[in-house]
């Protein structure tokens, strides 16, 4: 179980500190579905620079395997980038895509971005999901 402050993703007021009314208003709007983040219908923002710079490079390929973006077969020794989801692409193919959006073109696995608003939105969504699960658990433990 999480404590009250963690549950609502808030920190207690310090001695003499007054509530931040703008923050309250923002939370109120969010809870009534008027999210200040409008990422619902868009592609996620570009992948984080650090993530792109540190992508794993591989040079040996499974026989007959090809790059899902250009559909060309990998030739022996050709340098390719491997994403965290294990999918492999030519770097000339995957880099322009990651500059556009931070997902794997094959499985849609999401990677880190440099967009603080989007990361906050992602955390919020994740917390919302977890909370739903917790409520479900609580309900089941009470009514089973």
């Amino acid at each position, binding site marked *: 179980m999480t404590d009250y402050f963690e549950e609502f993703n808030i920190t207690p007021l310090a001695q003499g500190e007054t509530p931040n009314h703008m923050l309250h208003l923002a939370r109120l709007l969010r809870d009534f579905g008027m999210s200040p983040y409008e990422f619902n219908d868009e*592609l996620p923002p570009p992948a984080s620079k650090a993530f792109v710079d540190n992508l794993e490079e591989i040079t040996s390929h499974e026989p007959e395997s090809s790059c899902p973006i250009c559909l060309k077969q990998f030739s022996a020794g050709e340098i390719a980038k491997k994403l965290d989801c294990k999918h492999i692409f030519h770097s000339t193919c995957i880099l322009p895509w990651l500059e556009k959006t931070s997902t794997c073109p094959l499985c849609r696995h999401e990677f880190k971005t440099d967009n603080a608003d989007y990361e906050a939105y992602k955390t919020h969504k994740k917390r919302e999901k977890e909370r739903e699960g917790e409520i479900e658990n609580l309900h089941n433990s009470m009514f089973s």
Partner: protein
Amino acid sequence: MANIAAQRIKREFKEVIKSEEVAKCAIKLELIDDNYSELKGEIAGPPDTPYEGGNFVLEIKVPETYPFNPPKVKFLTKIWHPNISSVTGAICLDILKDQWAAAMTLRTVLLSLQALMAAAEPDDPQDAVVAKQYKENPEMFNSTARHWTNVYAGGPNKNPDFDQKIQRLTDMGVMSHDARVALSTYNWELERATEAIFT
């Protein structure tokens, strides 16, 4: 056109020609011009839907930024479907907009469109009139979609009642397509359709 787009379409084209869907005549792809930027697609209406037996032609335009951006696809064959405009053929499908991914191909697009024909999304409509009918009067929707399939896509199911109502309007000098649109919109009530056309 940028090399990468043309190169990829070339490879995809080979893939589609060899695919089992082409062997089963479910999808078809043809080149329109020599630089691989414009194609013609064809999909067979899925079985057990009002589109069964029809053949639907699509216009496919490949942008220079393909496959990083989706192809532009619309129906050239007129169709009665909640997610496809009955006027322009424009399609409302997420993978042709914000849910596009670079690993998708023309083959997966055609198969997705076939799936869309079998399972409409009336809550995310392209054609509000059709979507309303789909939700409020599914039987009327089915017979209207079947009638459009018969007239525009070569489907086998004639509807003598609908044909007769259209005839009544064409006898008054209305173009048959305009008559069909008005009647389809007003659930084949001749009086209301006539009123809509002449006011």
